[in-house]
Every structure is written in C-alpha cells, then in structure tokens.
C-alpha cells in the first residue's frame, strides 16, 4: 500500500534537515505543533522564534530579520498567512524582495473538522497576484522536500502551500527531479490533459486510470510552481491534446484554473474545464467526505475531462 504523509509533516522534516544552514531562522505564530515547525525547533531551538498569535507582526518581523542576511521561514495556517497578513507580506516582504518564505499549512477544505473559518481556498489567487512572489504548491512529501530546498535557494519571497491531511507519496525521492517554475509530466496522453496541483495531483492520477479504462488517453501534469507558471508545458499540452481540465483544492476563481486559462487564451486557446471549489465556503466534516461533497474527486475530473474533449471542434 502507498505510504501517506501530510505535506506539513514533510515541511517540518525538511526544515530540520536543511536547518544546518545557519542562515535559516523559523518563525511561528503559536501553531508550531500543527505547522510542524516544532520539528525544526527541537533541533535548532536558538533559531526558532515564537511570535505569538500576531501574524501581521510576524511577517514584517520576518522581513526585518531577512534584511540582515537571514533566510526566514514564517509559518502559520494558510488562512492567516495569505489573508490576515496579506498586506504585510506585500509591503514588507514582496516589495523589497526579501528572503521571507511563508510556510502556509492547512490550505484547502481537507483541513476538515475545523470548518470554513480555517479552510483557505483563496490563497493561490491572492499570493500569485503579488509582484516578486513565487508560489509553490507541492503534491506530496517528496515534492515538498524539494520545494523547501528550492525556496531556500531562491532569492526572494516564496509562498509554500501545504496541507494538513495525509496524502499518498507519488514520487521516488531518489529519482525525482524538481525544477522551480517547471511543471512535471507524470504520464503522457493525446486526448486530453489534466493539469493538477497539491493533493489533487494524486486524484488526477486516479482519474487518468479511470479514463484509460474508457479508452481515453489523458496526459497528466503536476504544476507544483503556480508562479512563475510553466507556460511551455501548458501550451505544448494544448497543441498536442487539444483539451484541458484543471484540478485544485482551491476556489475556481483565480487559482490554478485561472492561471492556466491566462496562458491558454493568450497563446493557444483550447477548451478548458476546471475542477475546484465552486466559489463557496467549505464546512466542517471528515476530509474525505468534504472532498466528495465539493466535487474534488477522480469521478468529477473524468466527467469534466470528457466535457472538455466534447468541446473540441
């Protein structure tokens, strides 16, 4: 059976692993046990700073520390990172292009029982609209480790979108090659392309298998870097498969679907269908049940893929 690890767990482990770099400082807003920055804290307590329940101050403080040559990871739930402290991220970190890396956990509705107030479904739209910001949305534990490494190496602010729920490990750590700004084609196909991000990548893989049973060959692409987005891989998919479906655990307004649409309409328009949360709030419930209720399933991807194919001329 496939191993399951939450991307927040992989984030904490990666911080501890790469924490030997003394430039790394980790900030949290009283959620270190949930964001998993406590893994770093145990290993490097002198470089872990709890900022208390004050996210706006945390982001600007992170920026101040970064001006002194540090690489600062600031962690909290995605909702508080991207929305409560949005303007601090914009003006204190993005405008001066400082090394502030935002580890935003508990993204999406798979947060589950905590309900709508804690389920962030707007962060991709908001964070990718900020100049100088890089937005990463890894699919599994292996990709998360690579994303943390890439964030450390990148000069400037990075938003890391991470989840609470344990998700299947898709990639092999020894062989997986991650390149910031490049999509990863998981499987080739000629009839339709499924472009997915985050935990929807493994759902897209499942959908690909269901489509194959029905004689439809789907290309599957993992977009771990939402910004800068890999236009080349999207345009190539449009040319070679002629139909696209996107899949994300995010509002269909302004997220991965929006980013892909921006590339397509300006370069090579083909039919596009989006699987995501249909512009409404989440609710409390078991994560699996919620994913079903909100249409974040392999079956829905299959249905939308077929619709996209039908729209081809």
């Amino acid at each position, binding site marked *: 059976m496939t191993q399951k690890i939450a991307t927040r767990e992989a984030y904490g482990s990666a911080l501890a692993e790469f924490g030997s770099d003394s430039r790394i*400082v980790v900030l949290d807003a009283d959620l270190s046990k949930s964001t998993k920055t406590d893994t770093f804290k145990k290993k490097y307590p*002198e*470089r872990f*700073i709890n*900022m*208390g329940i*004050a996210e*706006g*101050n945390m*982001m*600007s*403080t*992170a*920026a*101040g*520390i*970064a*001006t*002194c*040559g*540090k690489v600062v990871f600031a962690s909290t739930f995605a909702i508080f990172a991207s929305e409560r402290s949005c*303007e*601090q991220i914009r*003006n*204190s970190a993005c*405008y*001066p*292009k400082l090394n502030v890396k935002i580890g935003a956990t508990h993204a999406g509705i798979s947060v589950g029982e905590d309900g709508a107030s804690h389920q962030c479904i707007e962060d991709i739209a908001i964070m990718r609209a900020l100049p100088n910001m890089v937005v990463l949305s890894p699919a599994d534990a292996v990709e998360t480790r690579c994303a943390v490494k890439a964030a450390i190496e990148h000069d400037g602010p990075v938003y890391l979108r991470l989840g609470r729920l344990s998700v299947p490990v898709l990639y092999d750590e020894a062989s997986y090659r991650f390149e910031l700004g490049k999509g990863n084609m998981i499987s080739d196909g000629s009839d339709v392309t499924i472009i997915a991000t985050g935990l929807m990548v493994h759902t897209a893989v499942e959908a690909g298998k269901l489509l194959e049973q029905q004689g439809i060959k789907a290309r599957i692409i993992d977009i771990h870097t939402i910004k800068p987005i890999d236009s080349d891989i999207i345009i190539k998919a449009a040319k070679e498969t002629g139909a696209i479906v996107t899949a994300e655990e995010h509002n269909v307004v302004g997220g991965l679907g929006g980013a892909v649409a921006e590339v397509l309409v300006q370069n090579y328009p083909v039919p596009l269908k989006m699987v995501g949360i249909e512009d409404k709030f989440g609710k409390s419930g078991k994560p699996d049940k919620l994913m079903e209720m909100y249409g974040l399933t392999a079956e829905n991807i299959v249905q939308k893929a077929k619709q996209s194919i039908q729209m081809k001329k």
Partner: protein
Amino acid sequence: MEIHKLKELKKQAVLIRKHIIDEVYSAASGHPGGSLSCTDILTALYFNEMRVDVKNPQWEDRDRFVLSKGHCAPALYAALAEKGFFPKEDLVKFRSADSYLEGHPSMRYVTGVDMSTGSLGQGISAAVGMGIAGKLDNKDYRVYAILGDGELQEGQVWEASMAAAHYKLDNLTAFLDHNGLQIDGNITDVMSPEPVANKFEAFGWNVINIDGHDLTQITEAIDKAKNTKGKPTMIVCATVKGKGVSFMENNAGWHGTAPNKEQRDQAIAELNDILSALEVE
C-alpha cells in the same frame, strides 16, 4: 555635548529642513509637517550617533534605521543626502517618475535606506526583526526607528511592542514623534492613543520623555537607552508639526500638502534666518 558640536548639529538640522521644503515643493506633493517635526531626531541619529559607512552602505555591522512613519521620506532622504549616501542635487527629483526617490522609502532603490516602509505599523515590526537578528548573531549594532503618534492607532505597533519587550531587545531604540496631529486633525479627536508613555511602560519598555527639538536632550536620551539592559527604549519626543516654518507649525493642513512658490520662498527665507542667527551666535 560641546558647544561647537551642538551648533554644527543645529545648522545641519536647518539644512535638512530646507531640503524638505524644496523636495516637497519640487514634487508638488509629499508630507512636510511630519518631516519637519522629526528632523532633529534624524539629525542627532545620522550626524552624532549612528555607526554607518557611506562607502559601504550594506556594512553588516552598521547601526540600522527604520522610518516607520514612512511618509516622512523627505526628512530621511535629506539626512541621507547630507550624509553623502547620494547626491544632494537628486533631492529635487523626489517623487518624479524618472527618479529613484520613491514617495515612501524603498530599500531597493535608495542607497542608505535599511527598510522599505510606508504602510504604517510595519516599520516597527521590521525594526524588531533587525533587533532579533542582531541578538542571534551576537552583533553589537543598534537599531533605531521613528514612529508617528497617529501611527500608534495601528494594532501592529502593539504586537511589535509586545515582541520587542518579550525578546528583551535592548539593542532597539524607538522615537515617538509626538506632534499631536494626523491628517484628519488632533490625534486625541480622531482616535486617542493616550496616555502613550504609560502604554509603552505597560508593554515593558523603558520610556524617556523629552523635547524632540532639543538636540542635547535627544543625544542624552540615546545614551540612556544604550545603557539600559534587558528592555527596548521608547523616547517619547514632544514635537511641533511643521517645526521651523511659522505658517506650517501646529497645522494639520500641512500634513500632506506641498507649498506653492510664494510659500516655498517664505519658508526658505525663515530657515535662512535661523541659519544666519546660528552663524552669529
């Protein structure tokens, strides 16, 4: 402070005030009132206190300065230009599209600016971050910040104040430019942050009350802050908005208004008179 040094600082402050008037006049926009009220604090910092090197602006052991009330960029730019970080002639290009002198301070464009500011409340948090970094690296540099009194209405100031005391940032000294006015009028009418000194004391800061236009008091307060261990210092400076220009003093209308030619000439004439008086003193 010796008499000669004090006189030099006083003259320096007048030169900065003249630049402020010409920057805002040339741009036909900007914030003269608050720039003039924090001029003496900036003068004491850049011309008597701070360890900076104009030949090596990014020197990692330098003292840091954050203008948390970023709209008073004209005063900071004037101090930096007088110090030699960039040509004084560039000041009159303030706020123009072909200049690097942004309306609010940008650390990416303006040599000598340690942190980009402009959105109130964020600068003091960044200064806290610099203080934390100094402690992490066992550096002996000091961090200075200037806040506006209207700025205290931003909740983030209090989040940052809590953090500064919690982490015992005795390498951080902040100045409150307490001129009592904000855009919409008296701060006590708009949304009173009073009693400010008691509030910072309650938040765990060492608080010193001074006349923010008395250079001797400013430098003595800085010395006291340097000798205070285990807590940050807030120097509450009683100031006059528009200080040095008679018709701008204590008038909220000059918060964000540029003088016309006639007003500019009168302001410069008044400042020249102060300079002449200092020469014969």
